[in-house]
């Protein structure tokens, strides 16, 4: 229910078309005005995938469709999509135009469904919600309209060690590919079999079909994505384990993995606990070997390193980075800003998670999607020592004004290219350390 937004850090509901782009060989079909696809492409940048960006079919609403409805045009575009593009799953997403004029999209997709086509539709009118929210709507639409067609050969909870993971929102989390790969590797290290569902390490639509077989679901998120695991709980009786932020570095990753192990025990997964614990111990050993080596630098570098930080990001990253930075680098978190339009009911838990970072200091947290207003607040803050700002491309200008170090980790940003880097996990923590201190060292010329 937010008002004015300056410098938006997320996009509207149709932005969840990137959720489709992240599934191997799936294609979003936009039933929207012209420009919606371009806006989303421009927001995320370098996000075309297999058939996103300029490749995605679109009905490009004109005056005629606004007046007479666009279902005929949609039918024609879908029909020809099958001729032109070679895809495994088609998800029709709708824009404001289709939403306001009230096109009956289901009646069109049903015609193709009857022909056995793997097609799904979901309402994503921009005014409905944002892409944090509609990510769940898109995933649930695929579960309800596509995965459900394969229930017979994928009996609910029939594979004891199989888990579905719902974590990063593709593209909105710039590190989604790397993070998902790392979650998969860690959970496999504990002895699970993992449906990671998005990105090159997923098995595409075949893997999606096997979602019901999982014993339970893992949600790594403070709030976005929760409707997915709730849907699966209702549908297939799968319980879920929730970890409320991105686990970065050793403390939090170990906490996450132990939490999963405890939960798995209750679900009778048959995981060999001793082997799992040994895996965690080995990961920790690798991690602390690096931190141990680095400590001298952190403590003795005498020319100046960042001592405190403001983070502008979504709740998962603000919490995860806050907890990590204080305990594993010594950088002190000052005022923190959560700019993902967090629904009210989740705020107190997020505040509690951040408060629990330290029992001897207050870490003020502010929730607002109006990042321009946040910047004005930071302009007026004054803390001793060398500051660091972690945020989106917009914040580079702010950091320059304040003469702070700056690390780009959030959307939108033209200042950083992220390929398969992960920030989650043990190795993710080490990468965050590299990025922060390389940024600081790069200022010495």
């Amino acid at each position, binding site marked *: 229910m937010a*008002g004015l937004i300056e410098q*938006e850090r997320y996009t509207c509901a149709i932005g969840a078309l990137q959720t489709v782009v992240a599934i191997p060989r799936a294609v979003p079909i936009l039933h929207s005005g012209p*420009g919606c696809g371009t*806006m989303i492409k421009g927001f995320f940048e370098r996000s075309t995938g297999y058939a996103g*960006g*300029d490749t995605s079919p679109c009905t490009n609403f004109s005056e005629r469709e606004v007046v007479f409805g666009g279902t005929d045009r949609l039918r024609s*575009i879908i029909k020809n999509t099958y001729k032109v593009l070679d895809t495994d799953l088609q998800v029709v997403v709708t824009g404001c135009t289709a939403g306001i004029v009230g096109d009956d999209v289901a009646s069109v997709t049903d015609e193709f469904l009857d022909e056995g086509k793997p097609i799904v539709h979901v309402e994503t009118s*921009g005014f409905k919600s944002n892409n944090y929210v509609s990510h769940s709507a898109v995933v649930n639409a695929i579960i309800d309209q596509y995965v459900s067609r394969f229930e017979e050969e994928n009996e609910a909870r029939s594979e004891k060690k199989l888990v579905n993971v719902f974590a990063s929102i593709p593209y909105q989390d710039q590190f989604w590919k790397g993070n998902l790969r790392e979650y998969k590797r860690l959970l496999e290290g504990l002895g699970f079999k993992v449906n990671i569902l998005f990105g090159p390490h997923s098995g595409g639509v075949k893997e999606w079909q096997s979602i019901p077989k999982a014993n339970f679901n893992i949600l790594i998120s403070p709030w976005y994505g929760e409707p997915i695991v709730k849907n699966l709980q209702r549908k297939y009786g799968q319980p879920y384990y929730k970890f409320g932020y991105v686990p970065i570095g050793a403390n939090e990753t170990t906490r996450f993995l132990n939490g999963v192990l405890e939960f798995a025990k209750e679900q009778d997964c048959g995981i060999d606990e001793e082997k799992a614990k040994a895996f965690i111990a080995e990961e920790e050993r690798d991690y602390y070997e690096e931190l141990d080596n680095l400590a001298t630098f952190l403590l003795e570098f005498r020319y100046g390193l960042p001592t405190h930080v403001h983070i502008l990001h979504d709740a998962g990253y603000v919490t995860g980075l806050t907890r990590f930075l204080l305990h594993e680098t010594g950088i002190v978190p000052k005022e923190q800003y959560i700019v993902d339009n967090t629904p009210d009911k989740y705020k107190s838990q997020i505040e509690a998670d951040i408060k629990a970072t330290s029992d001897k200091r207050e870490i003020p947290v502010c929730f607002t999607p109006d990042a321009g207003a946040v910047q004005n607040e930071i302009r007026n803050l004054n803390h001793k020592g060398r500051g660091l700002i972690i945020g989106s491309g917009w914040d580079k200008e702010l950091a320059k004004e304040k003469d702070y170090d700056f690390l780009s980790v959030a959307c939108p940003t*033209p200042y950083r290219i992220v390929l398969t880097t992960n920030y989650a996990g043990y190795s993710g923590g080490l990468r965050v350390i590299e990025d922060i201190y390389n940024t600081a060292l790069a200022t010495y010329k």
Partner: protein
Amino acid sequence: MSKVNLDLPEVEIREIRLGSLTGFNGTAKELVSACGGCAGKQKDKSRSFSQCLGCGTAQAACTLTLIQDAAVISHGPVGCSSCLHEFAFTYRVNAHLRQIEHPTQRKIFSTNLEEKDTIYGGAKKLEAAIREVYERVKPKAIFIITTCASGIIGDDVESVANAAEAELGIPVAATFCEGFRSKIWTSGFDAGYHAIARKIIKQPREKRNIINVINFWGSDIFKEWFDEFGYEPNYITPFSTVDSLTYSSEAALTIQACATLGSYLGAALEQAYGVPEIRNSPPYGIAQTDRWFRELGQILGKEKEVEEFLKRKKEEYLPKIEALREKLKGKTAYVTAGASHGHSLLALLYELGMKPQGAAIFHHDPVYDNDSRDADTLSHTVSDYGDVPNYNVCNKQEFELVNVLNRIRPDILLARHGGMTLWGAKLGVPSLLIGDEHFGMGYEGLVQYGERILETIENDEFVKNLEKHSVNPYTKWWLEQEPYTFLGGNF
């Protein structure tokens, strides 16, 4: 002639005003003669398969967000402004080209329309937003860009803007650029310029030795050129100020980097504020460069100086151009770009001795707002150098481009807009995108461009490697069809 009417809140879209097209296949000559002097008579064709287009709201923002001291409010859901951060980047990284040492942060806002606003209307939200933006930024002007949602729910943006203008005492301009209104996203440029022409520009106090340059954010070549004749460029609109726009009416004349961009504002400045507009299309290739400079000399009364200038340029650059022609002779090329600039690139290729094999040009304006045949870049290109085969008017329809490139396999792909080079590279075709719209202008531009083309053709290792490993979502069936199979259906 299209009559500029600054009393109306909205400017008509290009399809209606100029009879512009988004679908055509044939040769350049066929298009020129089909459109010759009969704006609107050539029937547009539509496609029964289409991919994502751009929309007017982003192009309107393109003309407004880079004004140094203005603020822009997108009146719509948050998604309708989500690519505008790219203009903030452009402003920051190109500011030095206009000698701006400390580029200020771009002020871009969204009224963040939500579902209840589509039911009860968003006018109240907009009113509050304008006040808040004024308090926060203290801008010299506020532009409101409209979106599909605000357009369909029927918010009275003009009234809200006028009331705010009276209250705040700064120009508050409603800019009508809803995406669904036009298939030609450059209609958004017209919308932005219309807002500037009716709300910002004032009648001249006195004439000054400045020349309006309607352009994007390219290099500052006009400073050096105009200096020869005792004039200074007044760049519109990137890096302008509200003040410099207000008195653009005091310029001796207006020129454009690309008629597709500046057509409407050039005509508005001439018709409403008496600033003559150069008719000839921009100076790309020798023939057009000479023609353009001569018209400039004529308007400024500097014919002699212009002849001397051209003579000097010829002496300096013709030998270099000749050397490049030797190396580039017979090389084939394909062009994908917006209209006018795309036509200029074709001229440039011919001038360098190359053989354009075709072009995918985003739309076609049979005539510009000044109604002058001299402004028709494509017609100049065809009469100066000959026909262009495989000339396709295609609004960024990637599937057609992939199909065509796969058949033609030119020695180089020249692209002007993002996203298009990828397919050249995937097919192993060296691909070049020049962002600076002034890069190829004049004699020096011909040399610069030629050198870059040569370099791109020579350094093909990357695209050849990418070709071996690239992923292709297009079906085998599609690549075997005629490229314009889906053009001309009923939808």
